[in-house]
């Protein structure tokens, strides 16, 4: 299975601190994506990093990808209360007709005021 597994399962930090979440996966991927889910809502795409990229930035988000270790990290800098949510990594095997994106179990991030 190419399923990603996030680590830690839950994370609580003070507002203003940086939050780092990790994701490991098992098989070759076309790209890896990070999504956020607020409670009771759908998933919102945050960032996509292709298998030939090592780092990508979007605002306060920084994503790294190490295909040799089959791992990725999501860093949220200067966290805010509104960042409280669950964060999922998703592995995209849709190349080679594997037409699905598989999500991990997620990291529940709680930003303390």
């Amino acid at each position: 299975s190419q399923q990603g597994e996030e680590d830690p399962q839950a994370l609580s930090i003070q507002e203003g601190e940086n939050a780092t979440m990790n994701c490991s996966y098992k098989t070759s991927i076309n790209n890896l994506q990070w999504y956020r889910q607020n409670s009771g809502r759908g998933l919102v795409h945050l960032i996509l990093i292709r298998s030939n990229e090592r780092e990508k930035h979007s605002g306060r988000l920084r994503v790294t990808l190490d295909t040799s270790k089959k791992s990725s990290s999501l860093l949220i800098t200067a966290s805010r209360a509104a960042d409280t949510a669950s964060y999922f990594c998703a592995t995209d095997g849709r190349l080679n007709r594997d037409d699905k994106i598989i999500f991990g179990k997620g990291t529940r991030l709680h930003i303390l005021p």
Partner: protein
Amino acid sequence: EPEVTQTPSHQVTQMGQEVILRCVPISNHLYFYWYRQILGQKVEFLVSFYNNEISEKSEIFDDQFSVERPDGSNFTLKIRSTKLEDSAMYFCASSYRSYNSPLHFGNGTRLTVT
């Protein structure tokens, strides 16, 4: 910004009944997906759909499930005879391309089977 819409937001049904969950994907998207999430747990892939046929399905997507795109806008998931364990949030998603393209999710339908 265009968005994926799902109806109803909450569906309560009795075990053994049929339910149809409806989705309107983003209009220029070509690839459609259903996922489900049992409360507080992981988001599970059910099925992908392209060019009016299923392109991939998971082991969860057994004969009780079916999908259809009856017209140019709606994408539906039917569960023929619901079971208690079908209770979950069901999310529809769409994407423009088949790869290197993010999924756009609806806000889900909470299905409760009693």
